[in-house]
């Protein structure tokens, strides 16, 4: 694989402008996202108010830090700003990646593919010379570069392409294509949209959106790649993401994706963007010309290309890990996250926990709202790794209260994509004896149906 490194492709160069534009837009979008997150009061609501947080396997040590959590968000926001400005870029993007990822690891209740996308992208950007043009760093004499290796720009395209294409592959299943689920559930509930409200009640619209969505995800990377279809593709990108923004509570993500897809455009396009930005800055008297742009071509440190090769290998392989597990992926969710399975299923559950004192054998049921926020309870009720983690928390809680050899059982029901709810976790299993791991969870009851496809 590493012999590829010497391939002629790696000697090709491209103008630095696309990377610079991407860096500026990415930094600005991240800064706006964080400000919005803070302003909505979500830091307190999601990370400070809950008394218990659901951890990712292996990252139990990542927890909110009380009021210091605000400091993490502040660091994250400032580093996003520094990325946009290209000020001490390498440090800034490393800090951004670490702080943003820390935030996401604090509680898996808030897991979103979008957030994972940001973490992954910012990791990639650590290794790219995105500050060599149109940045404060580039004001140092000789630091600016007119051209960079072409693969640096292409790596971002590849990452975006993986996200879209894998999201499209995930839609190739019988629920999505044959039943038009879950859109058949979601769209009719949008009856109050102007003009579209009535259309959303029609079955053919549900199918049109299902097939349209799958085709869009599968083909958009390729349509963006070729100059002849690029503007058409960009139009689709805008329409698609704006539509998802109208239909679903999806936050900043549509805008981030629209902005990111600009990376596919030609260097000239990006230079014209920079030209306009430059004019604006000159008017504001904020622009200082680069002293000297070096023609010396940038070479990454020797470890960079191998790291990125491994990184992309993981990106390509990790979403397929679900095939190693028995059972239906949508049901067990073993290998569901971190795989670009976006808006793919409507799943809801109900989990009634029973705590048993192992000595007196007396038992009682738990009111989940005593321990969890509504969002946590909702996410917990249909995800086995949440259920077992919560069961351990309950056991610890009641043992501290003086109950002995506490056993925890759950009676739970889950409804998936409009099917009637069915029992989810084996109610006879004492969950305290089980632990979360990457192994198959044998105490998930089998799914009474089949979903064909990838």
């Amino acid at each position, binding site marked *: 694989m590493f012999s590829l490194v010497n391939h002629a492709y790696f000697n090709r160069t491209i103008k630095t402008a696309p990377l610079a534009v991407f860096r500026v837009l990415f930094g600005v979008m991240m800064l706006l996202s964080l400000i919005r997150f803070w302003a909505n009061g979500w830091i307190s609501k999601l990370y400070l108010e809950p008394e218990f947080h659901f951890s990712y396997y292996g990252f139990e040590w990542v927890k909110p830090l009380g009021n210091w959590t605000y400091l993490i968000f502040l660091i994250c926001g400032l580093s996003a700003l520094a990325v946009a400005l290209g000020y001490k870029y390498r440090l800034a993007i490393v800090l951004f990646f670490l702080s943003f990822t820390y935030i996401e690891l604090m509680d898996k209740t808030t897991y979103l593919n979008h957030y994972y996308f940001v973490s992954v992208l910012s990791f990639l950007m650590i290794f790219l010379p995105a500050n060599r043009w149109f940045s404060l760093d580039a004001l140092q004499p000789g630091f600016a570069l007119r051209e960079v290796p072409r693969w640096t720009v292409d790596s971002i395209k590849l990452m975006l392409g993986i996200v879209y294409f894998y999201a499209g592959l995930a839609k190739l299943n019988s629920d999505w294509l044959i039943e038009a689920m879950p859109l058949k559930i979601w769209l009719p509930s949008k009856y109050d949209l102007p003009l579209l409200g009535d259309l959303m009640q029609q079955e053919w619209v549900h199918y049109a959106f299902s097939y349209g969505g799958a085709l869009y995800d599968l083909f958009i990377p390729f349509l963006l790649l070729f100059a002849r279809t690029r503007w058409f593709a960009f139009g689709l990108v805008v329409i698609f993401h704006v*539509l998802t923004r109208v239909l679903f509570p999806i936050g900043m993500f549509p805008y981030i994706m629209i902005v990111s897809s600009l990376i596919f455009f030609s260097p000239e396009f990006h230079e014209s963007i920079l030209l306009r930005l430059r004019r604006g800055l000159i008017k504001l008297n904020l622009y200082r010309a680069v002293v000297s742009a070096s023609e010396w071509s940038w070479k990454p440190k020797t470890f960079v290309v191998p790291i990125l090769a491994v990184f992309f290998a993981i990106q390509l392989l990790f979403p397929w890990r679900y095939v190693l597990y028995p059972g239906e992926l949508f049901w067990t969710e073993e290998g569901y996250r971190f795989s670009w399975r976006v808006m793919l299923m409507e799943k809801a559950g109900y989990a009634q926990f029973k705590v048993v004192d192992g000595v007196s054998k007396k038992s009682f049921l738990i009111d989940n709202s005593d321990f969890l926020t509504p969002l946590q309870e909702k996410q917990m009720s249909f995800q086995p790794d949440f259920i077992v983690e919560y069961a351990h928390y309950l056991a610890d809680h009641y043992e501290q209260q003086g109950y002995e050899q506490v056993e925890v059982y759950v009676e739970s029901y889950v409804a998936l994509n409009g099917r009637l709810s069915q029992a989810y976790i084996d109610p006879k299993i004492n969950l305290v004896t089980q632990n979360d791991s990457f192994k198959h969870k044998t105490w998930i009851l089998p799914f009474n149906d089949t979903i064909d496809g990838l």
Partner: protein
Amino acid sequence: MLKKIFFILFTGLLLACSSDDPAPDPDNGNGGNGNNGGEGTTGFDRAALLANWADNIIVPAYQDFYPTTEALEVSVTAFRENPTAVNLEQVRTDWLNAYRAFQWVSMFETGPAEDLRFRARLNTYPADTATIDEFIATGTYDLELPSTIDAQGFPALDYLLFGIADTEEEIIDFYENDPTAVNTLVYMQALAVNIKTLTSLVRDLWQSSFAASFKANTDASATGSIDKLTNDFIFYYEKALRAGKIGIPAGVFSTDPLPQNVEAFYNQEVSKELALEALLAVQNFFNGTGANGGNGRGFKSYLDFLNTIKNGEDLSTLINEQFDLARLAINDLDDNFATQVQTDNIAMLEAYDELQRNVILIKVDMLQALSIDVDFVDTDGD
């Protein structure tokens, strides 16, 4: 097909620009005209659903309830002026009538009722008898305070009417002869007035303004009337009916049964009657009818409409069958749940299980079908 797709995608883009700020929609009140998926086209008429809920079920339920609170206040006043066994009997009859009628409004804890904490102030049990005794002795209390919710409403009256002394003779003797009876009657009257006043407030607000805004709010969002009342309905069924009336006394949520936690504990005869009344009110509301009418637009017809789209399980029938099973199980119980819990708690737990099955069908399956979030949290989705 492709043309259609592009047509929709294109209109979507045009609309997106204006969708951040939901435009006021003057037509939304009159069924079928607004963007509520009106029946004139192809959808389910959500405005007509809200109109049925407000005009044919909720407002009439308050209108039925209010006179019973009035009658209660009248008979309490008569009893206070003239504490005889006959007048006590009249108060008890009126108390039960009002308590029964209350079961038909208790689930509508939205808008004015929510603002006034109506359910908590009328029906928090078990009553805190020590606090009640103290309030009677000192004569100083503020029924507005959240800390006094278990010293007022129907449960507090239950205590004063049936539990102030051990036997029937002693209760009559207490009100006829005891020196503290005067203060007790003053407090009893304050409670009756309080119930009547709160009820008239809620009823009047529904009639004067809230019904109109409730019906107009056909939004599909979490702040829309359908979302909110659906969540209130489920909360009531799960916490007040299933847990409050059956589960908690049966000891489901504690290590041991709690017979003293049944509704109308001191009366000792009507906890089953009240539970059945509440169950009927809930089932009727599910089917889009009230105590005296309603045109059937409700969760059932909404689910049936959505089922024509997705050809899923006949959920509304399953839910109705489960309500019927729960009713059968409750019918088998003793009139006094406290007795039931102490003699044969297994039957009480079976009734709980039947009620619980519908929590799953309603909270998981129905909400999924309606695409409504439980206690919606304002965060981003995928």
